[in-house]
């Protein structure tokens, strides 16, 4: 029996279910009529009390959630990264195009030049109304400026209105940010910073009874419904600001009854614990108002910068109306994508502002007549300078924790010069496209540009596609530097003036070295030629290998190594003789670092990308100051600089002057490694030092040399940037003499083969040769001397 019935019960759950309801009425019926009422009330009370206890427990739980998260949650504010501010003054080096690009990057609009944040350009004449900026060393107040650009320099710089000053800084352009994982971006504002009209307009549209309700307002819902019916569309939302805040702050987006209940309960609790002003301020910072790529724009502080390039303090009525209107649907009313929708929404808000008496009808009419006035695009894109920001992050990582950078709203003032960066990116892209017909997509490049005397990194290009945030070759591609090492070999030699001068004859003849293990090394010149004896300066300016190895072996590999270390090489340096020809791997940034000392007469200047880091309020946290450190005798460096100039005029770098104007004196050095795997150029003008590398990521061969790969990119860059020529001051202990380098003798200025060359005092030749022949020329020279 059991065996038969049990499976039936087991396999027919429906029966079981239907059975139980049948049972219970039977039971209750059996309890009798007399006990029915007390039983019902007992149950009701029980359920009621259980419900009360549960609700109380739930409320206590929600209360804990509300208070702990509202108090404990600080907004995670990303760090902001700024370009260097452009300094405007008479004589400042800037082209009209670069100034216009700079203004646009800082979110300026072409306009009347009277309203803050606008400029007017007429050819080379600019009127600029600055917005002002609080730097740590003081406020740059708002000013109206007038200037003319002629020959890539500022002239007639005048402050038309505002605090007069011969030099004014523009607001620095934001070039990036360091964001928390959830990619929420915001600029915190305090209630006191927000114009009253703004909060009044917001409350008029979103929650008219904000100051009176307890968190939820059934009457408001009714009134909103009425207003919406009257307007024929939704002009007011039903939920209070508090409810909206609770929804964004604590809850998910799902629309369930339970969630609505929680929302109401939490709104009441929030109102119970906190002042209206706290709730309003949090709302102003929390509200979602737009999207820029993966970055979510939160809060009105950032919204006013994002859409208008303005501080919230300075917004006008029509701008306030647009931002308030956005709350209803930031994507639907996106003023950049859907300007018509945004305009009608804005005007609707202006109507509400007028109806509620916030502005008078004339003001409303004026506001309605205004265009949307949003900046053309997001004032910056976080992916604009990925290679540069990458280097900034690495420098920051020395002193700051990642989580602080992502949440503390730090302001990072970098040394990036957008005009120089633009020219560098353009040169890399343009010249690589031209090389090998532009068809060879595997050819890659990197470029570093620094300010010669301050070591500030002005531009960094990590590859031929500068917007690609991948492999950063400028920082991570460590490649043999080839002949870029030669100036350091000769510098080491020239620091011994009793043994080496620029005209010391050196042997350009083949030889072989046999190592202890029996291996042989037979260096060759690039052209496989041998020239016998050549003067030292020619060996360097023409980048001959054989004399370099001889000189290097003579002064000692150790000495060359310690010269390199003095100039800033921290990594390992090979002690094989092949290091004298550059079998030492370095990144472009390291090359820029060691060439800094060559460019500045022996002063090592640490490269910097950051001038200063401040907290969100602008208090300085760390400063990265200019430092100089003398690492070589300025006299010997001056001699090397002479030859690096000669390189550009007669040596391996001379093709630069196909692109660069002759007046721009430059100094530099080419570098090529075997089979053209690496093509390097490093050189400098009076203002800038630039290093370029061209090669392949897989280290494959190319048909390029330093002169045909990296140099064209470098020259293209130099030709685009207005700057001072290189003209070093003759240091103490250096004298210039007219010499005949082949004869290793002093000679007369007007003789054939005469060169005016620098010598460390006392190392000049002590023999003198007179000119052979050419009497006429000597007499002419004598007369010229007489009348000079």
């Amino acid at each position, binding site marked *: 029996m059991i065996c038969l019935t049990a499976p039936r019960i087991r396999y027919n759950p429906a029966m079981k279910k239907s059975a139980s309801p049948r049972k219970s009425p039977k039971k209750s019926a059996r309890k009798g009529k007399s006990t029915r009422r007390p039983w019902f009330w007992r149950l009701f009370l029980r359920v009621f009390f259980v419900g009360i206890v549960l609700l109380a427990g739930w409320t206590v739980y929600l209360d804990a959630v509300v208070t702990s998260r509202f108090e404990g949650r600080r907004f995670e504010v990303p760090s902001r990264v700024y370009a260097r501010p452009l*300094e405007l*003054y*008479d*004589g400042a080096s800037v*082209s*009209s*195009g*670069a100034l216009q*690009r700079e203004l646009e990057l800082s979110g300026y609009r072409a306009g009347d030049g009277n309203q803050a944040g606008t400029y007017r350009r007429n050819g080379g004449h600019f009127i600029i109304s600055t917005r002002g900026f609080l730097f740590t*060393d*003081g406020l740059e107040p708002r000013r109206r400026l007038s200037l003319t650009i002629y*020959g*890539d*320099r500022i002239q007639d710089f005048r402050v038309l209105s505002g605090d007069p000053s*011969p*030099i004014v800084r523009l607001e620095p352009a934001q070039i990036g940010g360091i964001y928390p994982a959830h990619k929420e971006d915001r600029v915190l504002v305090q209630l006191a910073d927000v114009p009253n009209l703004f909060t009044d307009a917001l409350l008029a549209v979103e929650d008219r009874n904000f100051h009176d309700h307890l968190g939820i307002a059934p009457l408001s819902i009714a009134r909103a419904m009425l207003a919406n019916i009257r307007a024929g569309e939704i002009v007011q939302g039903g939920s209070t600001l508090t409810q909206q805040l609770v929804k964004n702050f604590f809850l998910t987006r799902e629309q369930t009854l339970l969630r609505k209940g929680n929302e109401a309960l939490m709104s009441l609790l929030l109102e119970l614990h906190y002042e209206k002003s706290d709730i309003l301020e949090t709302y102003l910072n929390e509200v979602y108002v737009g999207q820029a790529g993966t970055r979510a724009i939160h809060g009105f502080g950032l919204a006013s910068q994002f859409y208008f390039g303005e501080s919230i303090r300075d917004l006008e009525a029509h701008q306030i109306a647009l931002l308030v209107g956005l709350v209803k649907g930031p994507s639907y009313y996106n003023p950049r994508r859907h300007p018509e929708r945004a305009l009608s929404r804005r005007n609707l808000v202006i109507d509400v502002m007028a109806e509620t008496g916030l502005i008078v009808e004339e003001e409303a009419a004026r506001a309605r007549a205004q265009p949307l006035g949003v900046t053309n695009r997001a004032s910056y894109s976080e992916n604009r300078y990925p290679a540069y920001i990458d280097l900034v992050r690495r420098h920051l990582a020395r002193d700051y924790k990642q989580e602080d950078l992502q949440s503390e709203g730090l302001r990072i003032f970098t040394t990036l010069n957008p005009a120089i960066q633009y020219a560098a990116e*353009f040169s890399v892209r*343009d010249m690589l496209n*031209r090389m090998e017909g532009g068809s060879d997509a595997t050819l890659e490049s990197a470029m570093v540009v620094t*300010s010669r*005397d*301050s070591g*500030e990194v002005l531009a960094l290009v990590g590859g031929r596609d500068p917007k690609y945030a991948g492999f950063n070759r400028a920082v991570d591609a460590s490649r043999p530097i080839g002949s870029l090492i030669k100036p350091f070999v000769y510098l080491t030699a020239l620091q011994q003036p009793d043994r080496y001068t620029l005209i010391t004859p050196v042997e350009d003849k083949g030889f072989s070295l046999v190592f202890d293990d029996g291996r042989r090394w037979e260096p060759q010149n690039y052209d496989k030629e041998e020239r016998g004896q050549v003067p030292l300066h020619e060996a360097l300016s023409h980048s001959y290998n054989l004399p370099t190895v001889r000189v290097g072996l003579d002064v000692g590999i150790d000495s060359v190594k310690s010269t390199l270390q003095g100039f800033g090489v921290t990594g390992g340096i090979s002690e094989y003789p092949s290091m004298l020809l550059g079998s030492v791997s370095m990144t472009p940034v390291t090359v820029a670092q060691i060439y800094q000392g060559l460019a500045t007469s022996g*002063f090592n200047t640490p490269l910097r990308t950051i*001038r200063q880091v401040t907290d969100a309020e602008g208090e300085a946290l760390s*400063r990265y*100051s*200019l430092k*100089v*450190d003398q690492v070589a005798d300025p006299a010997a460096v*001056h001699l090397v600089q*002479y*030859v690096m*100039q000669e390189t550009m*005029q007669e040596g391996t770098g001379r*093709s630069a*002057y*196909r*692109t660069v*104007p*002759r*007046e*721009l*004196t430059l*100094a530099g050095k080419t570098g090529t490694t075997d089979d053209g795997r690496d093509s390097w150029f490093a050189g400098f003008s*009076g*203002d800038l030092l630039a290093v370029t590398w061209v090669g392949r990521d897989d280290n494959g061969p190319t048909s390029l040399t330093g002169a045909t790969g990296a140099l064209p990119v470098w020259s293209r860059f130099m*030709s*685009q*940037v*207005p*700057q*001072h*020529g*290189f*003209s070093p*001051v*003759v*240091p*103490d202990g250096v004298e210039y003499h007219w010499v005949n380098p082949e004869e290793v003798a002093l000679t007369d200025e007007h003789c054939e083969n005469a060169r005016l060359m620098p010598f460390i005092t006392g190392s000049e030749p002590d023999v003198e040769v007179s000119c052979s022949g050419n009497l006429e020329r000597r007499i002419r020279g004598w007369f010229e001397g007489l009348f000079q």
Partner: protein
Amino acid sequence: MKVNAFRHAGLIAVAITVAGCASGPGGGSIYVPAGGEHSRDEAPQPPQTSERGDEPRVERKSEQPEEPMRQPEHSTPSYQDEGDALSPAARSLIRRADGLMASGDTQAAVAQLERAQRISPRSAQVYFKLSQAYVALDQLGSAEQFTLKGLSLAGSDSSLQRAGWLLLADIRRARGNVAGADQAEARASAL
């Protein structure tokens, strides 16, 4: 002690001011506007315009490599006897820095001097001023280096040379480098 050691400080300030005024404009490094790319600057969409505009010119050049070399007029390496004069903008920032130093805000003064250095990086005065600021901050190592840097740009300007060597003598003495200080002082008096 610092006050005693820096007996030349007043002299230096005067020397810098005098030298600054004496070396007026003219001379100095040659400024070269961007070469032949002006049309690009004026164009609203620079890269595109330029790529199209420049291509024929450069191609022609690469086909005829000898012609544009202009060999005969190749110049000789450049040098100058003195550093550049301070620009008026840098001078105004140095004045601002002087005010800040007088009020004891040396760190802010350094910030202004670094602005001045970026504007006039090849004038010795800026570095001597930085050196003085670092003396006030009691960072004598940095002060000595900035003095050396300034001296490397003083060239044949004997008043700047003297100011620099005396400053260096003071700093070295304060650092306990008596021999170095004497040497620097001897250099100053030899001028």
